[in-house]
């Protein structure tokens, strides 16, 4: 297998571990966004650009955004 795919797979494993190891939801939201981009690169490397696009728009943008907004609501609501 080519170098790009191998590197991307290792980075995905590392990013996934980082998401789990970080215990602060705010940091996790940013890490999961990075994880989404890396997963998109893996899909691209195995010649699935359609899935890569979906993964990037949902995993790297939409999901972290929803988490961030939910966190903002929860933290802002504490009185």
């Amino acid at each position, binding site marked *: 297998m080519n170098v790009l795919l191998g590197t991307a797979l290792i980075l995905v494993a590392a990013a996934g571990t980082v998401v789990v190891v970080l215990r602060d939801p705010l940091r996790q939201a940013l890490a999961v966004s990075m994880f989404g981009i890396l997963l998109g690169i893996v899909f691209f490397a195995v010649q699935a650009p359609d899935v890569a696009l979906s993964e990037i728009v*949902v995993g790297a943008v*939409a999901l972290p955004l929803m988490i961030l907004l939910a966190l903002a609501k929860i933290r*802002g609501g504490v*009185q």
Partner: protein
Amino acid sequence: MTRRTRLRLFLVSAAVLAVVVLAGFGELPAFGHPGATFGAVLNALSVPQRHITDVVTAVNFTYRGVDTLAEEFIFFAAVTAVVLLLAPGDDEHADHASDAATGRWVPQTSDAVRVLALALVGPTILFGLYIVAHGHLTPGGGFQGGVVLATGVLLVYLAGEYTHLHGLYPDTVVEGIELGGASAFVVIGLIGLAVGGTFLATWGPLGQVGQLNSAGNVPLLNVSVGAEIGAGFVLLLSAFLRQTIVLRRHPPANASGSA
């Protein structure tokens, strides 16, 4: 159950699971294996039969179009549920939309972020439209393009204030676009039933392979999905932002929030 017993139980189950999983992996085709014949058949058929150069779109909108219809309505139901859940509750009231609400300190958006977001609004929306329009030619389509279009709206919020975003579009219009997109998919499918004999049968001029106006009804399906997904994400965004920025639990905050 003591800690030791639990650990033993876990080790035994983990060992059994490992054996089953590894045995299963052994039967899998090798990594990068060309795969099933179904893929080869679709690769050979999608251009001559449908005039679609992106085989994934050919599968999503023609060969397995009914699956996409179901997915679209799953998304529709999810958006409806989130908007209902985030609707203002009895114990909440709308506070100042500005971030100057009582007892809250919110950092100012930096000029750099505002300028960058403003500069990206136009290109992002254009890119989203491009992805939707070229779904049958290149990777992408209604879903991906729709989400990109929604992020264009998010950039408006980043570049300005919540009030700017709220003044940009009334929620009812966005709801109409979402409903219109979802219904259009069904209507296009029913036209296929009337013309071609099966639901979502391809109709309309197939055109020349590789041209923007080709592949019959597939670009229309992409536009309808793009409208539904884009509007749906904008509604999600509005509902979350309203909850975060405008709505406060009453009585109004008397202590400083731990933001």
